[in-house]
């Protein structure tokens, strides 16, 4: 265990005043009053009951907690909710349009791109960010730019196939758009 020094504040010190944090989560504005050390991940899971976003490592090493903030993919475990005040957060729960699945969700089902499913919400949010960034076109580039999402079940080949398909679907849709 940690060598606790007398000079350290005990973990049980009275918490500072909660901080008001306003987030637009999946299109709905929510104001929370949070302890300063609440990560965005914990705010989503524990305070907003959005448990689709997973906690794998809690240290930026696995990608299970990936969400989109103002359209960019980040690890929600390594940012404080207070640091994201005023921003738009999209989680796996927010990717569907009404009852229609997101092309990535459809492609993951079609390609059997998961086994236990624990990494999947992070994979899909990360892939949505990847497509928006527009830096990947080959399978190798998809693999490299998805390397922040680990899959203990090793569904990688099918994940790449699913992303490739969704990428094409999104591109076709964009071309067909008026």
């Amino acid at each position, binding site marked *: *265990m*940690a*060598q606790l020094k007398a000079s*350290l*504040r005990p*973990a049980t*010190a*009275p*918490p*500072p005043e909660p*901080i008001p944090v306003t987030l637009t989560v999946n299109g709905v504005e929510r104001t929370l009053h949070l*302890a*300063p*050390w609440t*990560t965005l991940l914990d705010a989503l899971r524990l305070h907003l009951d959005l448990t689709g976003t997973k906690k794998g490592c*809690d*240290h*930026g090493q696995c*990608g299970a907690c*990936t969400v989109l903030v103002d359209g*960019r*993919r*980040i*690890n929600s475990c*390594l*940012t*404080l909710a*207070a*640091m994201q005040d005023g921003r738009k957060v999209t989680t796996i729960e927010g990717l569907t349009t009404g009852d229609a699945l997101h092309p990535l969700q459809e492609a993951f089902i079609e390609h059997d791109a998961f086994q236990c499913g624990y990494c999947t919400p992070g994979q899909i949010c*990360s892939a949505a*960010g*990847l497509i928006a*960034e527009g*830096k990947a076109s080959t399978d190798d580039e998809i*693999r*490299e*730019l*998805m*390397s*922040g*999402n680990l899959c203990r079940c090793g569904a990688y080949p099918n994940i790449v196939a699913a992303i490739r398909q969704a990428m094409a679907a999104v591109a076709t849709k964009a071309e067909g758009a008026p």
Partner: protein
Amino acid sequence: MRSFTYARADSAADAVGRAGASGTAFVAGGTNLLDLMKADVVHPERLVDISRLPLDRIEDTAEGGLRLGALARNADTAYDERVQTRYPMLSKAILAGASAQLRNMATNGGNLLQRTRCYYFYDTATPCNKREPGSGCGAIGGVNRIHAILGASDQCIAVHPSDLCVALAALEAVVQVTGPEGERSIPFAEFHRLPGDRPEIDTVLRPGDLITAIDLPAKGFAEHSTYLKIRDRASYAFALVSVAAGLEMDGGTVRDARLALGGVAHKPWRDPEAEAALIGKPATPDQFRGAARVLLRDAKGHEHNSFKIELAERAIVRALTEAAERKGAPRP
């Protein structure tokens, strides 16, 4: 995490003012600081959020170089068109680091100040002079596969884990700082320090100092440069050894050279003598090996990391060979 208070700085001066109180830390991307706070390695009482300060731009300088805002994200820096075309080795180095998500969060200033990934530094149950001065070093005589082969001391053999910094060292960047005593410019070679008998101090920054920007000189070695990173898996892992190499070629002859190593020391490792050994010489593997040997002449391995010496030599030869061959400024 231990309890702390949180406040947002509304200007650089406000940030510096707030940082005067001891136990205060800036948070930018949070990707290193929050990780260390969760592991109880550091425990600031006050966090000052600087992430929204308007220091996130990338701008041309009057001298023909580029000023990278301290709060520009690593991803935005790597994908900036001017960085890609004028400083491709820098873009390549950044994209070799961490993951896409982390690069979207991590800032340039924060990257310079990230702490070592030494296992003992992270494990509060073990001794570590960097975390707890005077407690001893777990890595010396312990597991030291990822540790330093150059510039270490008998107090600490940790390495600086950054990729970005290796390229900045090769490019001779300048760190712009504002602090309680005003503004100053720190040449990159002087920014990070060796552990000596004060391994708890990583850089020459003083309490309250805020990095505002990183300036790149005009010379970017765009035509002949590369960043080579050797690691335990193909992506999303820290460097065992990395090389930033930049050459200026005159036919088959080297006119100017820059060479910096990552993953081998407490700071990016450069040595003007190694570069001098290349200048005016033909760009051949033998010459490159000779320069590598100069750069590595004081290298010393520990029980598990002696392999890094030969690995570094080979990586240098490969990187210089690639740099010499490379034409134009390909996208990374």
